[in-house]
């Protein structure tokens, strides 16, 4: 299970301890989630999504996420290609 937690935390200047406190886990667990060493339960995943006000598919995915920059700035040769 892949997630965008490091990006979302950095983007919103949220520390691991703050996120952990908000969703009711220990800060180490957030670290394990970010490192991909632990897959959260549905309950924890939903609490994290609620905290970031995002849908589940924006935070967690079964496939690796493409970088956000490639969504914002698609390569020009891709746009022009037939």
């Amino acid at each position, binding site marked *: 299970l892949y997630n965008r937690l490091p990006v979302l935390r950095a983007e919103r200047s949220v520390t691991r301890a703050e996120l952990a406190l908000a969703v009711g*886990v*220990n800060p*180490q*667990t957030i*670290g*394990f989630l970010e490192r991909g*060493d632990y897959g*959260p*339960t549905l309950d924890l995943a939903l609490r994290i999504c609620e905290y970031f006000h995002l849908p589940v598919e924006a935070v967690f995915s079964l496939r690796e996420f493409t970088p956000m920059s490639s969504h914002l700035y698609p390569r020009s040769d891709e746009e022009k290609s037939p």
Partner: protein
Amino acid sequence: MTQPDLPSMDGTTPVQRARLAHEATRDLTTAEQLGYLKRYKQESDAHRRERPIPHYAATQPARRRLAAVAAVPFAAGMAAAVLVPLLDNNEVRALLHLACGFASALALLVGLPLLVRANRNLAGAPDPLLDERELDERGHIYTRAYTLLSLCIGVLPLLAITDELIQQWSIPPQGGLALVIGVALTAVMLPSAVSTWCWQDAPE
């Protein structure tokens, strides 16, 4: 009546805290004292969980060396039961029995608190203090500890059968007792030892 404040967990020793708690609850009713002690235990457990990993368990090799302490009572029990009776000299035999007992007691009395501290009491902390990952991890730890304990206990009937088959070499009754005590002491230490062995460093 309002409940008295709990003693501060920082900067006080357990003895000082116990004295403060005793003074604070002296004039309370039994029910109030029980309520106070319950709160005190919760606070104390939470404080114990918050302490950082000590320097002696900072690296994985160090943690694994420490976890091996749990094998000491079992090994000492085995030595007392199987090897010591082979010696002819009674005095040396008694001395070695004493040494095995001392090693087991030392492993339990010194090793167990060190193990508990090294894994932040993951094996023994109350459920409300652990989050879902830690509860999950503790489940795996108990499974592994149970498997190891089954193997240790499995040695006992195996030795009894071997002892029966090989008539020249016989385990004396006190040797059997030493073996059972060794297994029991190892059983007490196993969950904490497995937890320390499996402990992963928190991500940077």
